[in-house]
């Protein structure tokens, strides 16, 4: 009856595959640091491996890909508004650092002495 709907029973093989994949992706993201990538290549690779890992954990380990759309949208939808917060804070941070450089200058040696 409703058993099939609520029971998340899947073949073990898929968990082993995802498990292995998460190890590989983690190794890759660690290698981004070891290989010393810089700038946009570094940030791009970090984000790529991060989103892949997060996606696999949510979709398979947390069984989201087998849930109904009603639950998927209710949980995945709301965090999208966070992009607005992130955008606003990025702009604000940029403004703050420019203001600080304007008023205090680039000399930060005062911070090296206060411990």
């Amino acid at each position, binding site marked *: 009856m*409703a058993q099939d*709907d*609520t*029971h*998340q*029973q*899947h073949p*073990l093989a898929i*968990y*082993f595959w*995802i*498990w292995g994949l*998460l*190890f590989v992706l*983690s190794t890759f*993201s*660690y290698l*981004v*640091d*070891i290989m010393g990538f810089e700038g946009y290549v*570094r*940030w791009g690779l*970090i*984000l790529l*491996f*991060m989103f892949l*890992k*997060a996606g696999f*954990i949510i979709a*398979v*380990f*947390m*069984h989201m890909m087998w*849930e*109904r759309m*009603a*639950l998927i949208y*209710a*949980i995945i939808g*709301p*965090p999208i508004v*966070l992009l607005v*917060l*992130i955008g606003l*804070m*990025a702009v*604000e*941070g*940029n403004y*703050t*650092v420019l203001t*600080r*450089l304007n008023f*205090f200058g*680039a000399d*930060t040696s005062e*911070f*090296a002495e*206060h*411990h």
Partner: protein
Amino acid sequence: MAYDATATGPGHDPGLRGIATDWGGDRQAFHVPWGKAMMWIFLLSDTFIFSCFLTGYMNVRASTRVPWPNPSEVFALSFGGEPIPLILIAIMTFILITSSGTMAMAVNMGYRGDRAKTAALMLITAAFGAMFVGMQAFEWTKLIIDEGVRPWSNPMGAPQFGSVFFMITGFHGAHVTLGVIYLTTVAMKVLRGDYEKRGYEIVEITGLYWHFVDLVWVFIFAFFYLW
């Protein structure tokens, strides 16, 4: 027609129950056990908390004039020879992924009704979690005692580094610690046979919490340690 607050239309329940039935409209939105829906909604709220922390971190890192300490060097560890960058953090990441795998196995064994294997796998998961917290305690000790990192200052650069580090990893570590306690409690109840009649959804719900802790670490690893 004026609105009458005391109206008792057909099927109106008094008090709090009335609120629930009016909003629910006699319909069930999520066709999953209620515990699972509630766990997902809790995790959603937790997502907002961690996102606020990470966004705050982004803001202070973007707004400081002082160079941000290089995490690759700060979290390097030497085993006799040259310091290996981020090695402890990498090991912690692999430990958490391993524990996520054993948790997924536990959920599977639970639905098969294999009590002994379910409890054993959950306890293994908890053990990995405890290992993670232990390594984090080591990392904190090293940073506080040896490197002199404080929430208000540090010798490596921007003073905000310490407060961000302690707040974010501390809050995540608290989640792992709670998860270890939660897992151990449920594992003991599984072993005792408490869920033989009620079903093993509880193992899946506990698993959701544990995978979420792993998920948060994926973002902390990317943004705090690698960026």
